[in-house]
């Protein structure tokens, strides 16, 4: 073999490279194609949804057009739900109507007009001819006249001048005649047109509908045209987005941008009607779109402010993780994953199980100033807030805008004041109660004593608490001290009468009596969810030390505790004695004597220990305790709790609880000391929430995320709305719903009455009913209207500001925050008053509305209704019309019958509109009654003033 390299058979220069070139070019070309395809295809995963939407929309459009076509062509019957005049009538109907109209126009009168027109047209032609001839003569004579002037034919001038004058007269005469005929003709034609209006109308409609049909057919053809390129390829798949500036601000108050592209896939989220089986989930319309998106337009609020998630991301899958979802923020390091996906285990393992109630947490971001959001979509959040407020969580935790930080916080702690407890209960009772309140009252809000793993301490701790509480307490109170009557006197009442009174006067609106565990919660709406608002009094005889105390407490609760919400029922001395005698007998459960307690009570060591326990457990968070008025909050601030990451939560040694915020929070609420370890103790007591309660609180806590939301997005309350919100808290706190049905909820006391007709008035739509001034004065100084009832409206410890807030709360519900009603007798028509009086007599109103305010006989009680003499002071003028029109709508099952059989709309609301035939008949009568009742009872005051101004205010014309 030679070392010389073998020569190639062909020199390099001569080798053809066309094949590699071709292959390379082909590859390049294919890559280009693939790039374009990939860019417009697989990379745009959202495109499929938009294509789906287009297909769906096309199908729906085609269906709609076909339906409308069929209707206009008269092949399907008209939709009866559509009112006449709202849509075009079908063509056959128009043609029929047109023919009818034409027939109807063929009257002798019409024929005469037509022949007259023909005659007049001829006449006009002749008259025009005459006028034209006169004009021609005039031109000819003028020419000769000018010629004669020019050639100075003196003899002709005068003659021609005369002719010209005659011509002018002829023109004027014939012209006038022509005008006259013209006017007559125009008049006739007008008459003819009037007769033909109906015909013209239908002709016009025929044209419109024919045009509409053509255009619909055209549209249908376009919709049906097969696509040359399928949608999925044709669409470039634009990214839809909403950009908000300043919804978020950062720690330095700099505006941030929120970019939400959710609608790129959720393409029809803000388009009505995308529900049903044929619509894929991603394309569904937002639930309750009108209400939710109506108030929060997508352009203004975007999506992530409520739902969270990663707004800018448009990909729902990431390579390698089929369930890792960028757009919904289900990623390890995304801090705000979409609300409602229940997390379990870790961030890579989201359950597909959804709980949409979590989304309500977001309402709190902007609506935190409202005690309750009146929407069915915020009920869980509202419940959470009610729990946290009424259970007094705020006694230990700081929470922005909740509890003592809320708008309208009343300053009252949730537990009773312990400043004068020494006169009320014994030391034995304190020990037994603090040890386990639920053993006395299963639905008590007070948590029970829990030791820190050393039961031996318990007995000493409890003795200490009793000793300390008694030592800090005032030994007596002025009302007791000033009353020198002996204890035996206060036991001398008639217990039988007391029982009757207790059960009928209204105590049962808040208190239960002997509803031991087996009876708890049998009646709906009894209490505040699963808790009491006031104690069950089955054991009062064992609990309260002295009858004298009970007597003074029921007579005037505020004399013992100025902060208590217990109202006065204006009991007479005898009534208070009777009730005291009855309550003293209530001994449902023995209170065991505690061994060795008596001598410990004055022991300074024990008192000191008690003080330490009380301070350490934070009893002052809910109770007023002397010397602890200025203590801070015992526990952590929760304002940003919703933001906590699982690694920030102390799981202790627990491994059975999944490592998520949701699971930790639920477990903490159910079993507050479940996470404690030997070194890290928990003090939070158990509140025994129901499952729903724990979840509701969890949703509220999720809302505590301390986000910096821009001013523009926050729900601000104007002074009136703020007052109304404060009023709502008062209505809740004073438990008005214990007796009254408010907005169709509440009325616990009705369950104890033999006849619900003897219950208190229902307060649905109260703001529409009462004159604010009267209502305000009534709250401050209760003078019952329904004096025939055994029940009494209590006198609540309200000051003027609080009363005003309650009035504004009800007024705000009716959309009327105006605190004054203006009565001007001048605007009342005296004729209407007379008519009203007649109706009042015909309808025999006095058969139930007796003309008295007290002293009802037993027989009268069965039918009694408020005296109408009071009506003008109490009721708003519009209320007479609404109420008399249909009492049953405003008060379920009311005794007052309806005299006018008004129709109701689909929500059951009575229709009071002149357009409705029943209402049109009823309204004048109702207004007459109103005017009569506005005057009734103050005839002297309005003497001679009636009807001096414009006619009285009428419905539907404001």
């Amino acid at each position, binding site marked *: 073999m030679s070392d010389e390299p073998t020569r190639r058979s062909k020199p390099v220069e001569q080798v053809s490279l066309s094949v590699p070139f071709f292959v390379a070019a082909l590859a390049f070309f294919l890559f280009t194609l693939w790039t374009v395809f990939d860019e417009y295809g697989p990379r745009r995963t959202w495109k499929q949804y938009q294509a789906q939407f287009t297909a769906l929309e096309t199908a729906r459009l085609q269906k709609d057009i076909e339906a409308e076509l069929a209707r206009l062509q008269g092949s399907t019957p008209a939709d009866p739900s559509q009112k006449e005049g709202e849509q075009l009538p079908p063509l056959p109907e128009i043609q029929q109507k047109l023919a009818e109209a034409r027939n109807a126009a063929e009257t002798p009168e019409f024929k005469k007009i037509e022949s007259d027109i023909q005659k007049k047209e001829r006449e006009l032609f002749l008259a025009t001819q005459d006028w034209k001839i006169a004009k021609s003569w005039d031109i000819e004579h003028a020419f000769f006249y000018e010629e004669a002037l020019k050639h100075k034919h003196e003899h002709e001038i005068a003659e021609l001048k005369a002719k010209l004058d005659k011509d002018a007269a002829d023109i004027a005469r014939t012209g006038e005649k022509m005008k006259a005929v013209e006017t007559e003709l125009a008049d006739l034609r007008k008459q003819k047109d009037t007769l033909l209006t109906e015909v013209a109308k239908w002709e016009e409609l025929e044209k419109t509908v024919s045009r509409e049909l053509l255009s619909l057919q055209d549209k249908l053809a376009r919709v049906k045209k097969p696509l040359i390129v399928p949608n999925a390829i044709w669409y470039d798949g634009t990214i839809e987005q909403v950009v908000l500036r300043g919804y978020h601000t950062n720690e330095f108050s700099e505006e941030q941008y929120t970019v939400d592209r959710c609608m790129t896939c959720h393409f029809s989220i803000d388009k009505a009607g995308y529900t049903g089986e044929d619509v894929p989930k991603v394309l569904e319309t937002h639930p309750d779109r009108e209400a939710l998106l109506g108030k929060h337009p997508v352009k203004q609020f975007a999506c992530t402010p409520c739902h969270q998630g990663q707004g800018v991301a448009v990909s729902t899958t990431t390579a390698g993780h089929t369930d890792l979802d960028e757009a919904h923020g289900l990623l390890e390091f995304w801090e705000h994953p979409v609300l409602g996906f229940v997390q379990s285990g870790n961030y890579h393992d989201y359950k597909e199980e959804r709980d949409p109630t979590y989304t309500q947490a977001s309402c709190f971001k902007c609506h935190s100033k409202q005690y309750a959001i009146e929407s069915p979509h915020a009920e869980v959040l509202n419940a959470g807030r009610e729990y946290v407020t009424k259970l007094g969580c705020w006694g230990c935790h700081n929470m922005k805008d909740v509890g003592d930080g809320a708008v309208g916080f009343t300053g009252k702690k949730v537990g009773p004041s312990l400043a004068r407890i020494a006169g009320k209960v014994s030391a034995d009772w304190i020990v037994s109660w603090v040890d386990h309140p639920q053993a006395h009252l299963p639905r008590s809000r007070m948590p029970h004593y829990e030791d820190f793993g050393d039961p031996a301490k318990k007995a000493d701790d409890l003795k200490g608490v009793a000793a300390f509480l008694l030592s800090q307490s005032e030994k007596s109170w002025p009302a007791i001290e000033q009353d020198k009557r002996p204890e035996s006197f206060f036991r001398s009442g008639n217990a039988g009468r007391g029982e009757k009174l207790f059960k009928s006067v209204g105590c049962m609106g808040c208190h239960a009596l002997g509803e031991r565990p087996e009876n708890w919660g049998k009646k709906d709406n009894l209490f505040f969810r699963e808790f009491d608002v006031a104690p069950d009094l089955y054991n009062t005889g064992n609990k309260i030390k002295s009858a004298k105390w009970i007597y003074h407490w029921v007579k005037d609760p505020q004399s013992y505790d100025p902060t208590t919400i217990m109202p006065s029922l204006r009991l007479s001395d005898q009534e208070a004695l009777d009730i005291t005698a009855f309550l003293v007998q209530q001994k449902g459960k023995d209170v065991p004597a505690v061994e060795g307690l008596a001598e410990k009570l004055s022991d300074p060591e024990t008192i000191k220990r008690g003080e330490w326990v009380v301070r350490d457990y934070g009893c002052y968070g809910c109770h007023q305790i002397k010397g602890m008025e200025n203590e801070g909050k015992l526990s952590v601030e929760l304002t940003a709790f919703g933001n906590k990451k699982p690694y920030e939560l102390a799981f202790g040694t627990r491994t059975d609880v999944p490592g998520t915020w949701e699971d930790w929070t639920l477990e903490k609420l159910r079993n507050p000391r479940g996470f404690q370890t030997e070194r890290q103790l928990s003090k939070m007591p158990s509140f025994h929430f129901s499952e729903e309660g724990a979840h509701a609180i969890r949703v509220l806590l999720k809302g505590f995320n301390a986000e910096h939301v821009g001013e523009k997005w926050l729900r601000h309350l104007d002074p009136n709305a703020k007052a109304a919100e404060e009023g709502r808290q008062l209505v809740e706190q004073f438990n008005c719903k214990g007796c009254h049905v408010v907005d169709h909820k509440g009325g616990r006391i009705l369950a104890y009455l033999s006849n619900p*007709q003897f219950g208190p008035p229902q307060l649905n739509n109260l703001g529409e009913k009462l004159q604010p001034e009267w209502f305000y004065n009534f709250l401050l100084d209760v003078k019952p209207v329904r004096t025939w009832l055994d029940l009494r409206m209590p006198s609540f410890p309200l000051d003027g500001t609080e009363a005003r807030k309650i009035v504004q709360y009800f007024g705000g519900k009716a959309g009327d925050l105006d605190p004054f009603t203006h009565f001007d007798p001048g605007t009342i028509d005296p004729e209407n008053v007379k008519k009203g009086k007649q109706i009042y007599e*015909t*309808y*025999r109103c006095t*058969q*139930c509305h007796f003309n008295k305010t007290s002293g009802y006989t*037993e*027989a*009268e009680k*069965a*039918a009694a209704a408020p005296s109408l003499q009071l009506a003008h002071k109490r009721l708003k003028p519009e209320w007479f019309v609404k109420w008399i029109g249909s*009492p*049953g709508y405003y008060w*379920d*099952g*009311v*005794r*007052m*019958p*309806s*005299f006018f*059989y008004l129709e109701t709309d689909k929500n*059951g609301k009575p229709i009071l509109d002149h357009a409705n035939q029943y209402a049109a008949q009823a309204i004048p009568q109702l207004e007459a009654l109103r005017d009569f009742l506005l005057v009734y009872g103050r005839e002297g005051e309005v003497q001679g003033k009636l009807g001096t101004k414009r006619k009285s205010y009428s419905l539907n014309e404001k």
Partner: protein
Amino acid sequence: MTLAKKLRAPLQAGATGAFFLLAAAVSSLAYEAKPVPAGEWGSLEGTVSVDRPVTPVLLPVTKAPEICGYQKVGGVVAADQRLKDAAVYLDEVPVGKPLPVEPVRLDQQRCAFIPRVFTLAAGQPLVVRNSDDTLHTVRAEVEGLTLFNLAMPTKSQELWKKPLLRGSELLTRGRVKFSCEAGHTWMESWAVVLSHPYATVTSDDGRFRIDDVPPGTYHMIFWHPVLGESSQSITLRAGENLRVNVTLPVPDS
């Protein structure tokens, strides 16, 4: 065995099953009216008695005796132990004679509802009349829910009530209690509303009769406002005139 034979048994079973399913579906549907075939359907008649002599309760009139009188008869009215005003009806009837269309009249006379107990087929109109020169109100309640509460302030006023509705739906079953809220606490009347027409009320001598009943087995119910409900099962053959006599126990008061 041929294929056809092999298939026959399961097919038959299937057909029978389908038939039963269909029958069950039909029976759960509303009442179906048919013309009465002559002689094929039967009738029910009998007497309702009470097990011991009773005297009616006399309710005192507490309001307007010049219009209402001084006493009203209430409680259990049973002369010779034969019970008046007991409703007698069949529990569920899927098919039968046409529903009555003529209105039922309820009169308020001298502050008492007449009749005290009556029956009403679903959809049958009700006319309420006030024969007194005073205000009456007619409240109709079903299980504590007020259907309507209408005023009748003038004498001889008649109120054409369309068929009874519960909300916006036709009331097809239930006992409707009528009362007056104008202080006439003793006034009371009851209507037994059913989806079919096989119902009646006993006469003064406790007798009742129900005609044109398709043969079959029925649950027969006897109900009285004071004595409550009792029932018994009956089987009616084609063309039969079945006698049913019952005795209701009067509880110790």
